């Protein structure tokens, strides 16, 4: 498949009427359009957005909430930062459309503390939208009321998990809840709530603007549309790129001029480490799923050092409420230290991999379920380099 663009091509001017168009439809029509487009969550988990919105629309309650998850904390991900900074209108319109679609009146942007420098700009933008009657009471004269406020995070990776995010908004430690019940029924303050990624809202606005059929022409079966990827590491042109789903790792590397790559970490620290032999694999929900993080490592890099950096990250960021994650990550990190010292036996290594698999099954939230991924994939794909030669 040819590479569509080498930067983001979200045409802001083109989608400026998305909100107006949406408010002429019924909430059911919007949800159906989003479902028809097959939009899946852009934060990484890939839950069908239309289904989420339909569940929230069907929920009966006096109040509902729309939450924009701007707690972009996955290592190697920075596309939401660019969207919030340069494509603010698309994100805000997407949230407002989501609000209308589920019949909510309040929206909250949960902005990570690290992006506090964007706060004033975003607040000014929301004021502008209110002045233009695109937020607030009786939006564009349609009788629909919706307003958005911004809340800041305070430096906790786990708050990117939707229920931990809601806990944080409610003034608690950011510890994930058991699911079910899901936020679409029992979310913020117990009210039906949709929590979507920044890019998901932007994509929703584009779908309303251009139509589901247009959207489905891009990408591959089961993964429609484009994806923003944040590319960093050993390449000449790091940055945020809009690519069609289905693009191969090899094509991505060509696009950013990474000549010496030996491994690509797809999906951030919690993602998969792909060796050169698998560079024909594709970015898509059915193969290499990613919230947008693509990190490139060249032949000079020490994979054990990289793995250790990831595991140190998870040990620090585990919220500690469930033992598989709290203890498991620590054990994996200790294992890496043993490997470094040349003291880890094959038997113990296999036990650690089994431990990782147990964590994937037994952890309460996505953090502990995915934190063993780099350990397992790096030790599987780079066993010779990181283990056998030590």
């Amino acid at each position, binding site marked *: 498949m040819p590479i569509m663009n080498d930067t983001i091509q979200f045409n802001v001017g083109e989608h400026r009427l998305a909100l107006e168009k949406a408010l002429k439809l019924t909430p059911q029509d919007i949800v159906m359009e989003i479902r028809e487009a097959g939009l899946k969550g852009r934060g990484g988990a890939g839950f069908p957005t239309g289904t989420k919105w339909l569940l929230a629309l069907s929920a009966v309650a006096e109040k509902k909430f729309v939450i924009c998850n701007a707690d972009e*904390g996955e290592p190697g991900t920075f596309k939401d930062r660019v969207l919030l900074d340069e494509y603010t209108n698309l994100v805000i319109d997407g949230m407002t459309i989501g609000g209308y679609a589920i019949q909510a009146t309040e929206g909250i942007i949960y902005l990570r503390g690290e992006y506090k420098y964007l706060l004033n700009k975003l607040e000014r933008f929301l004021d502008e939208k209110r002045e233009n009657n695109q937020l607030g009471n009786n939006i564009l004269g349609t009788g629909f009321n919706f307003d958005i406020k911004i809340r800041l995070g305070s430096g906790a990776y786990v708050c990117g998990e939707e229920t931990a995010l809601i806990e944080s908004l409610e*003034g608690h430690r950011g510890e994930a809840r058991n699911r079910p019940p899901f936020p679409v029924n029992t979310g913020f303050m117990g009210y039906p709530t949709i929590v979507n990624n920044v890019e998901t809202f932007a994509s929703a606005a584009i779908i309303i603007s251009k139509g589901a059929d247009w959207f489905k022409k891009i990408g591959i079966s089961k993964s429609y549309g484009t994806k923003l990827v944040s590319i960093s590491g050993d390449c000449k042109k790091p940055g945020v790129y809009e690519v069609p789903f289905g693009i191969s790792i090899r094509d991505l590397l060509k696009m950013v001029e990474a000549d010496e790559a030996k491994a690509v970490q797809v999906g951030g620290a919690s993602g998969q480490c792909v060796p050169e032999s698998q560079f024909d694999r594709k970015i898509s929900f059915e193969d290499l799923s990613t919230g947008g993080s693509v990190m490139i*490592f060249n032949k000079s890099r020490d994979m054990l050092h990289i793995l250790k950096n990831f595991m140190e990250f998870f040990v620090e960021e585990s919220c500690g409420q469930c033992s598989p994650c709290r203890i498991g990550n620590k054990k994996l990190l200790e294992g890496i230290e043993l490997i470094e010292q040349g003291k880890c036996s094959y038997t113990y290594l296999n036990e650690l991999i089994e431990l990782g698999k147990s964590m994937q099954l037994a952890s309460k939230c996505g953090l502990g379920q995915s934190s063993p991924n780099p350990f397992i994939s790096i030790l599987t794909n780079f066993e010779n380099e990181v283990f056998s030669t030590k």
Partner: protein
Amino acid sequence: MLVSEKHGLTAEIESLAEKYGRTREALLPILQEIQMRHGYISEFAQQEIANFLDIHPVEVYGVVTFYAFLSRKPEGRYIVKLCQTIACDLADKEAIARAIERELNIKFGETTQDTKFTLQYINCMGMCDQGPAMLVNDDVYTHLTPHKAVEIIKSYK
């Protein structure tokens, strides 16, 4: 803490409770604002916030200890947060760290004697395409070199 300072802090917390509401959801915004103004959240402040929100102080303590950007001990006026996650690490954040340490004569995790600077590592701050990167309070700096990082720090003196 002087009695007059305590009174001042109580009044400040009361006005924040008015601004954000005396409900549990107001806890994080109140803590963030106290942190920003005072550089930390003292035990006394935690007690007072608990009183105004009508929750147990241990609930406040639990939240303060959970979040990396909230602190229970006084920190420097300028908190330098250097990103330690992989992209910045591969871009040689170590060299930046050593240069800043030499310049301020303290180690990461420490505060200068004049309480002007605190050095901390943080996890991925989303500037992976422009590393090494750091925050000084809320200001973002990217594409650092050891020399550039030191010049930035000096500009806060």
